[in-house]
C-alpha cells in the first residue's frame, strides 16, 4: 500500500524537474536506435514524395516543419494536381489529434518548466519521442530537456532521410521485407513494460486494446482508434481507482 502511494507521488511530482543540456544529450543517446528505424521510414517518405512530384527542398520543408510521419504519408496520398489544400490540412489535423492526449499526459514533466522551455520542447513531440520521454518519467528520471534531445535525434534522421530518399529514388521500397514494420511496435512494447503498475493497470489496458482494435476495424485508414482506445482505458482507470 505505501509502495503504491510513493509511486503515485513520484508520478505526480513536477517540482523536481530540471532542464539542462545533459538532459538533451541523454535524450539523443536513448533515441539513437529508434532514430535508425525512423531514418528507414524517412527514406520511404522521400521516395513517395518524389512520385507525388515534390522537389527535394519541398520534401525537406515538409519533414522539418510538420515533422509528423503518419500525417505526411496521408498527405502524400492526397497529393494530386490541382492540390486539394484544405483537404490535406484537415487530414493532417485529424491524423495528429492524438498529440492532444500525449500533450496532456506530458504535463507532470513539462508543467514545472518555463513556458518557452515547454512550448519549444513540444514541437518535438512525436509518438516515439513522447513514448521514450514517458518511459524515462516512469523510471523516475526528471530532466525536462529529454524530449528535446529525443526529438532532435528523430528530427535529424527524419529530415535527412526524406531528402536522401527523394534524391536516390527507390532503393528502399518495402521496409516490411526486412521486418522493419515491427520496429515501432517493438519500441512501444518495450516502453509499455516499464509502465506496468501491477494489477490496477490490467483492466484499463484490456479496455484500451479492445476499443482500439474495434475502432481500427470500424474506421480503417484513420487514426481515431488511438484516441478512442486511450480515452476508454483511462476513463476505466480513473473510475476504478476509487477502491
Amino acid at each position, binding site marked *: 500500500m505505501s509502495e503504491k502511494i510513493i509511486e503515485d507521488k513520484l508520478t505526480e511530482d513536477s517540482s523536481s524537474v530540471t532542464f539542462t543540456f545533459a538532459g538533451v544529450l541523454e535524450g539523443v543517446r536513448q533515441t539513437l536506435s529508434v532514430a535508425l528505424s525512423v531514418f528507414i521510414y524517412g527514406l520511404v517518405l522521400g521516395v513517395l514524395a518524389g512520385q507525388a512530384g515534390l522537389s527535394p527542398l519541398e520534401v525537406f520543408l515538409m519533414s522539418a516543419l510538420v*515533422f509528423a510521419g503518419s500525417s505526411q504519408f496521408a498527405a502524400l496520398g492526397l497529393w494530386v494536381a490541382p492540390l486539394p489544400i484544405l483537404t490535406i490540412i484537415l487530414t493532417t489535423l485529424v491524423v495528429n489529434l492524438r498529440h492532444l492526449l500525449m500533450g*496532456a499526459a506530458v504535463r507532470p514533466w513539462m508543467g514545472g518548466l518555463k513556458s518557452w522551455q515547454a512550448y519549444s520542447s513540444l514541437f518535438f513531440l512525436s509518438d516515439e519521442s513522447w513514448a521514450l520521454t514517458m518511459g524515462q518519467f516512469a523510471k523516475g528520471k526528471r530532466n525536462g530537456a529529454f524530449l528535446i534531445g529525443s526529438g532532435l535525434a528523430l528530427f535529424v534522421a527524419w529530415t535527412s532521410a526524406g531528402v536522401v530518399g527523394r534524391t536516390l529514388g527507390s532503393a528502399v521500397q518495402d521496409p516490411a521485407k526486412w521486418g522493419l514494420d515491427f520496429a515501432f511496435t517493438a519500441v512501444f512494447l518495450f516502453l509499455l513494460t516499464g509502465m506496468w503498475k501491477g494489477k490496477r493497470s490490467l483492466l484499463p489496458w484490456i479496455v484500451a486494446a479492445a476499443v482500439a482494435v474495434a475502432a481500427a476495424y470500424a474506421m480503417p485508414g484513420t487514426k481515431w482508434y488511438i484516441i478512442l482506445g486511450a480515452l476508454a482505458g483511462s*476513463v476505466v*482507470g480513473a473510475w476504478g481507482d476509487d477502491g
Partner: protein
Amino acid sequence: MTVNFEVFLTILGMALVTYATRIGGFWLVNRIKLSARVERGLQYLPGTVLVSLIAPEIGKGGLTTALASVATVLTGWRTKNLLVAMLVGVGLVYFLRSIVGMG
C-alpha cells in the same frame, strides 16, 4: 531547388495545425483546474495510448507478429535494453517471414 507557392502554403498549413495539436493538450490541462478523478485518468494515459497504438497492429499481424511481440517483451524485461529488444523483435519477424515463409 524550387518551392511551389501552393505547395508551400499547404506545408505551412499542415505545420500549423500539427503544432496546435502538440501544444493544445498541454495548454489545456495546464490552464484549468482538474478534478482528482481526471488527474487519475491522466496517469493512465501513457499506458493506454501505447496499448491503443499497438493493439490493432498486433491484432492484424497474425502469428508472426504475436511471436515477435512475446519475444520483444521477454527480451526487454530481462535485458532492460531497448536496442536489444528491438533487434530481437525485428530479427524474428524477418526470420519468420523470409526464412520460414510465414505471413
